[in-house]
């Protein structure tokens, strides 16, 4: 078949396909108002025909501009067909209902390693400062330490009062999100340095927490401190451990890519971890909500302790038991 006849045969189909492409690019409201050139279920078939016509045009050495035009049509059809996003709401719901817990259980050894890298230095530092208080100055300078001690040195007599205004609560909420989620994201992305930056972040944070906690205990502010942190610590520390685990896993893909090329191994690993990173970001948002709006309430210590323990147990129980029914 000569090119002219070929074009004559298919001209209408191509025009319809082009109209459909502009139609599909419209926002939903305008799309509803218009009549599509053909019903949506015909798209795959029409796209396959177009593919066949492109193959023929290439094989029969039709003119370059025709081939280019068909190529452009096929490419846009390809994007439309293969770029369709699944139902996002449903995917998110499924992941929250169990997929996240399954992912965490799958990476349990990395989670354990990250937990050791965070809590090991913390306990070591607590013990060290307990035995030799001056060791605290290795991590923090005296000015910072006294500042932190001042932060928690309020009297506990005003029970039931709100410690600060609501607007300050919201300010702190913004700050916690900005600060903590960014740290967790960096902890994960830093894993690409063969895990070194992740290890550094975990150990550094562990040492820091250890010093602060022990110094506050030594200063007799343990109750103030614990009543503040116990509510959000479960979600916050949990999320930091998970970001560390994801970072270490990514770093391991750099070090030992297995039977893939290094970049293929990285891409594969990242694809299996990205859900976990989204999940831990949500955990940090929950932690920030608790830290900004619940933790500063000055209630009796037993109440804070009870609610706090429940809040720590929640993520633990979730990771242990959620999503067991559909495998692993």
């Amino acid at each position, binding site marked *: 078949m000569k090119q002219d006849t070929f074009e004559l045969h298919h001209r209408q189909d191509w025009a319809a396909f082009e109209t459909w492409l502009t139609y599909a690019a419209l926002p939903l409201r305008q799309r509803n108002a218009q009549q599509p050139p053909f019903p949506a279920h015909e798209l795959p078939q029409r796209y396959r025909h177009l593919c066949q016509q492109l193959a023929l045009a290439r094989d029969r050495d*039709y003119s370059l501009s025709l081939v280019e035009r068909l190529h452009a049509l096929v490419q846009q059809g390809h994007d439309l067909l*293969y*770029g369709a996003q699944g139902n996002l709401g449903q995917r998110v719901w499924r992941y929250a209902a169990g997929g996240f817990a399954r992912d965490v259980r799958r990476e349990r050894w990395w989670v354990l390693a990250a937990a050791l890298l965070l809590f090991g230095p913390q306990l070591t530092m607590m013990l060290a400062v307990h035995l030799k208080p001056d060791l605290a100055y290795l991590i923090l300078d005296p000015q910072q330490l006294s500042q932190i001690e001042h932060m928690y040195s309020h009297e506990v007599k005003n029970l039931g009062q709100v410690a600060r205004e609501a*607007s300050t609560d*919201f*300010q702190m909420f913004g700050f916690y999100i900005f600060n903590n989620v960014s740290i967790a994201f960096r902890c994960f992305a830093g894993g690409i340095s063969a895990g070194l930056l992740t290890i550094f972040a975990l150990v550094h944070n562990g040492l820091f927490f250890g010093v602060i906690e022990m110094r506050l205990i030594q200063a007799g502010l343990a109750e103030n401190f614990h009543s503040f942190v116990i509510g959000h610590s479960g979600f916050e520390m949990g999320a930091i451990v998970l970001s560390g685990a994801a970072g270490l896993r990514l770093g391991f893909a750099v070090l030992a890519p297995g039977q893939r090329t290094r970049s293929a191994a990285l*891409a594969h690993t990242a694809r299996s971890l990205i859900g976990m*990173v989204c999940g831990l970001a949500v955990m940090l948002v929950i932690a920030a909500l608790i830290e900004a709006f619940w933790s500063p309430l000055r209630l009796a210590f037993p109440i804070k302790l009870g609610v706090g323990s429940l809040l720590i147990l929640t993520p633990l129980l979730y990771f242990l038991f959620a999503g067991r029914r559909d495998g692993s």
Partner: protein
Amino acid sequence: MLDTLRHVTTPELIELQLRPAGLLPRSLAWTIDFLIRMALLLCLIPLTSGLGRAGGGLWLLAYFLLDWFYPVFFEVWRQGATPGKKALGLMVVNDNGTPVGWGASFSRNLLRVADMLPMAYGCGLVTMLCHQEFRRLGDIVAGTLVVYREKPVALPALEKTAAIAPTEPLDRATQRALLAFAERAASLTPARQEELASLLPQLSQGSYGPQGAARLLGLASHLIGRRT
């Protein structure tokens, strides 16, 4: 290979061609996006400062969202292109040619922090310059590419000339060359057309000047099947 074209085979066994974009257009696109983000944040300052301390929190939230999710939002919902990329005709696609989804887009933008190390996108710059398809670390990890978005070309109609049948069979390469010449004829000066035609004495068969070029166009007309 000097060519940076990437060929992707679709499930329909059609070969798609992607043209990865290099360092300069991508840096320019980034600069435009950076300016847009800064402008948005500056505009937010007077709005949020009216709300006191809560406004400060709001501003930090906005900063956080713009910092991490501005590119993700546009890449997933606006055909793979942030405003900066769109201005330069670029878009982000998966390395199999399909549009990026949430996971891939989020990964490549999370890894920005690794690309920024040690300063001013140092790592990203080096990996991009070393990589055949100009990928930065984020692109490698997410399995994505930044490519030129091609606009569909309008089909230039071949000039209406009387078809001339060739006196002997033409091989495929000659046919292709003739068609390419006929398509470009509209954008060439008559002098250039004649010059090109004179390079093919065996086809123009002794007719030089305007007649030579006209004969080539006639042959092309015959090849695509016009019989007028």
